[in-house]
């Protein structure tokens, strides 16, 4: 029996825990405000808010209900538009701004925008000051085909300007009891028994795109909200991240910000707010997509992963094992792990001084898209200097440690081993960059597909590799 709160109603259901929240709210609870646009997390029409109890407070995040199994709703507060509509028929400030700025035309995507913006407002008291950019970024996962977005942008800016205000205006009164009610749900019986279960699900953001029908009828073991698998820690030698940490967890982590000064800019290139709120690091790794953004990112950090034996392991006493992330990939979607092994931790060495990191990604649409080619690089260099590649060249700046990875150029997310080895100990010069590109071109094996031709991908990786140095050392 799964228990959660849907709007103002306590739910206890024995529907398959793999059923999506979208199907549950629309067809089992008859809440038709949440719309179906694509069923693959790419349009945002089905966006709901998910409230999670953290230290006695409820934190709300927007998620696409089409990719969210009921298993991940267990113990949570799920909020649809019906759960925020004022009962007297009036409008919340978010809804009012959308009306006033003519941010709605056919109306089909509108609820998704309202939910995303409401989620933004609920998260705001801790977040100040609020810029209109932040308000707009909360709707980066919502597609509208009618308005051209300018009116929605104006609405978002207005909402941003009004914040922070008394949040009570944005949500009905019943929200004030939710924390208590969630505590009352308890966690023991709200999660399905793990022993009878076969499949695993993290955020579901890829699994439900690829195997929706199969998953919907199943009872998967949820990993997303497993607290043992979520922390981001600074240990003596390593940064250690739980496999179930979401991209948003990374984005909000002070530990990560300290190491990656452009974290926000780079992670913004990864899917969209609601997907980042769900997608886990381990999920990205095991999905083994040749263009997985986070995989390429962590390959370039030379990360290692800890694999925890699954429930079907021969002996419960089996110990976790650690392998290098780059050794996880054997071939297209082939992994060096047992199906029920779980990536419990991801570790990378704490950077030394002179550390730099860059992430590049080009797709048809800059944001909310899958890469045609993506690439990341981490390096350390010495001695310190100021200025571009030419200055580095003049000053004899040498790379001491380099890891480069690329996606979209091979059947697997590719650690560019020979390129990385070649660069170690080299001075940063135009010649080095050109020579490294020659090696890259030999290491990769891109194919022509819907995301681009082979010829384009080869040119693009050359350009993006160059872009790493332009970004890190200036032109």
């Amino acid at each position: 029996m799964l228990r959660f709160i849907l709007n103002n109603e306590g739910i206890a259901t024995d529907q398959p825990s793999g059923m999506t929240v979208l199907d549950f709210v629309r067809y089992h609870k008859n809440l038709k405000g949440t719309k179906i646009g694509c069923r693959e997390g790419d349009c945002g029409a089905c966006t709901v808010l998910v409230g999670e109890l953290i230290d006695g407070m409820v934190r709300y995040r927007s998620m696409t209900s089409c990719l969210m199994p009921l298993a991940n709703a267990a113990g949570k507060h799920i909020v649809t538009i019906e759960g925020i509509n004022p009962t007297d028929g009036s409008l919340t400030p978010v809804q009012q701004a959308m009306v006033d700025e003519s941010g709605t035309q056919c109306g089909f995507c509108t609820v998704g925008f309202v939910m995303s913006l409401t989620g933004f407002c609920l998260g705001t008291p801790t977040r100040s000051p609020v810029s209109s950019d932040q308000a707009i970024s909360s709707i980066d996962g919502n597609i509208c085909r009618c308005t051209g977005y300018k009116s929605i942008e104006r609405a978002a800016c207005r909402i941003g300007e009004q914040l922070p205000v008394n949040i009570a205006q944005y949500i009905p009164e019943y929200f004030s009891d939710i924390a208590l009610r969630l505590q009352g749900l308890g966690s023991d019986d709200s999660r399905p028994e793990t022993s009878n279960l076969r499949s695993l699900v993290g955020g579901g953001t890829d699994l439900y795109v690829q195997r929706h029908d199969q998953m919907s009828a199943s009872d998967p073991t949820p990993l997303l909200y497993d607290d043992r698998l979520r922390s981001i820690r600074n240990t003596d030698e390593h940064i250690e991240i739980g496999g179930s940490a979401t991209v948003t967890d990374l984005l909000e982590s002070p530990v990560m910000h300290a190491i990656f000064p452009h974290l926000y800019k780079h992670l913004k290139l990864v899917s969209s707010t609601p997907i980042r709120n769900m997608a886990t690091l381990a999920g990205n790794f095991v999905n083994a997509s040749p263009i997985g953004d986070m995989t390429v990112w962590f390959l370039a950090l030379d990360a290692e992963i800890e694999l925890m034996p699954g429930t079907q392991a021969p002996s419960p006493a089996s110990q976790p094992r650690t392998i290098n992330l780059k050794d996880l990939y054997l071939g297209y979607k082939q992994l060096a792990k047992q199906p029920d092994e779980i990536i419990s931790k991801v570790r990378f060495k704490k950077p030394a001084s002179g550390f730099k990191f860059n992430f590049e990604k080009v797709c048809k649409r800059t944001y909310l898209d899958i890469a045609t080619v993506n690439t990341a690089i981490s390096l350390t260099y010495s001695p310190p200097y100021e200025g571009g590649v030419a200055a580095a060249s003049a000053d004899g700046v040498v790379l001491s440690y380099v890891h480069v990875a690329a996606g979209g150029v091979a059947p697997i997310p590719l650690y560019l081993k020979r390129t990385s080895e070649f660069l170690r100990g080299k001075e940063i010069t135009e010649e080095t960059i050109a020579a490294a590109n020659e090696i890259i071109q030999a290491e990769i094996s891109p194919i022509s597909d819907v995301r681009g031709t082979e010829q384009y991908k080869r040119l693009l990786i050359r350009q993006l590799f160059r872009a790493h140095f332009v970004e890190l050392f200036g032109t």
Partner: protein
Amino acid sequence: MKNIDSHSHVRGESIYLDDIPLVEGTLFACVFDSPIAHGKIKSIDTSEAEKCDGVVRVITAKDLIGENQIGGIVPDEPLLADGEVHFCGQPIAIVVATSEELARKAAKKITAEIEPLEVVTDPRVAAANSDLIVPPKTFVLGDTAAAFMDCEFVFEGRTEQNGQEHLYIETQGAYAVPMENGGLKVYSSTQGPTAVQRAVCRVTALPMHKVEVDVQRLGGGFGGKEDQANAWAAICAVATQLTKKPVKYALHRMEDMRMTGKRHPYSSDYKIGLDKNLKIVAYEATFYQNAGAACDLSPPVLERTLFHCTNSYYIPNVTATAYCCRTNLPPNTAFRGFGGPQGMFVIESAIAHAAEKFGVSASEIQRRNLIDDGDEFPYGQKAESEAITSWTQADEKYDLAALQKEADDFNANSKYFKKGVAVMPVCFGISFTKTPMNQARSLVHVYTDGSVAVSTGAVEMGQGVNTKIAQVAATVFGIDVADVKVHTTNTLRIANTSPTAASAAADLNGKATQLACDTIRNRLFEVAKELVEAASINDLSVRDGFVFRNDEKTSLTWASLVMEAHLQRVNLSEHAHYATPGIHFDWTNAKGHPFAYHVYGTAIVGVTVDCLRGRYEVDYVKCCHDFGTSMNTAVDLGQIEGGIVQGIGWMTMEEVVYDADGRLRSNALSTYKVPDIYSVPKEIDVLQLETSRNNLAIFNSKAVGEPPLMYGIGAYFAIRNAIKSFTDRSPGFDCPFTPEKVLLNLYPDES
């Protein structure tokens, strides 16, 4: 005034097809569609599907009671493939089951043995094979052959244009419910309720009076639900007829994308001749339209390409020919602009080509050739032009020279980022080019409490047509818009409708509503004249709920006037008919006066290209747009912004990809990209063209649905200009300008 649906939209209370409460016993349909693009069907095996849980019936072509045909213009489109398949995604069988999941599951169990035949996806190949859906059409003005002989400068070239997926966020769908005596009520997400009614009647062999089609609203249409909504309604109708149960089918996104047609891709040749003053003397164009496997609306789309082949320019000698080529793609269909954008892209390419050879900015050639009052379009109509005015007002406000200088200065100091600027004038004719379609009806009831109900043939799909119709009724009666309710579009209330298309729905249905309201108002005022002792009904008006006599408030309220009229047995209802006056077209010589009026405008588009990565951003679209006199600026501005962004999408990131076997590769939102909030222009500025000319638009408020889309074409040429400031090699004319094409053009030597 805001869209009247805004309030229910933001509360999620507006009802779309998939939200309609289901009748008890409703079944669900799912289609088994062809996995290959062309072939002979040897056998279809439905036995496994029939054994599946919940399956009530599997239907193939042989089961149809009526005719297996839904082709509107040419009967070349079977509802279910019979004997042959002509495109990937062509429906072959219908599974009807007790739930959506079970229907979908069972459909996957159907197999068909299909012997493959040659697949053609290229319209030029189809033309070479003489595989044309209708005979070619040609527009001629003057004598191009003679004119080219006298031209000092003649340039020839070729353009390629890709299609565009509509990507209405609400997918296609229908729901059919059996009524007594074998009748049907069909809910449909369609722009053309009458087209759905006809298609349903044809496949069920029912007379039209037994089939009611009802449309509440669409979650976007953009032309994609004009004729292409018919199949799904017909499928539900057939299934309902055979099972005697209500049947619903709301398509999944991937089904929708692979089974429905899109904007027509074109391959075209042009030849342009100029004199030394940059005056275009002669223009020839040949258009190869990729129509797909069936006619659908391809011929009128093709015709509009010809109507708009010279865009906003006057060219004295024009020969334009268009071929409607049959290929093995899903039948391509209407999409905002309806062939017009494709015609405009080619003339703009020809001008850009000529400008490059002359070493001048394309805007110089554009400006010198703008059509003026009295100039003749290639189809014989004389222009009442705002082309020059809109250009001048745009230039005065936005200063084209300064914008160009700003880009040039930036480019001189930037290594990897380059800016480009382009101007896109637009001239778009308003009316269905098939004259008989320019008619509409409106049914208006005034109830005894003073509230008003209106029904028309217009379908609300976000464009605000119901808002404008409510405004018309409220304005004529002098009452508050809140006292007017525009009801569903329903074939029982309004018969024989034209589809909501061609930007014309507000004009046609608004005018019909105006006529109906005028008639009722005059009857009411005849009653009021006696009650308030006015000399003439012309002295009367209604404001703030009261009748006014010579602008003086009387004690007679609107509601009591209505009740009194009812007691006097005065008719408080009216069904009015409107037909656009003065339009005609003769296809025997391709001349006439097909358009009620034209909409004009001029946009300046600026972009920045990241020449390291091949990405780009649109910095601004600044346009002067001809509204006539807008009756609702909020709605009209929304149409302009939305149209511009959709046009930019078509020109940039939206790439429909079919492989050589005719399979759609860009078959989901993960592979087909429409603009998101970050890919729209940073600035869209719209200047209202000041003009006081009378026109045939409702309340002088010109149609606004389609014309702004074509401003987006400017983005293509702005990107092209930016590339030209990075490399001295000129890109061809091949849209969309995806980041791939941009990068390959930036580094042509690597290509």
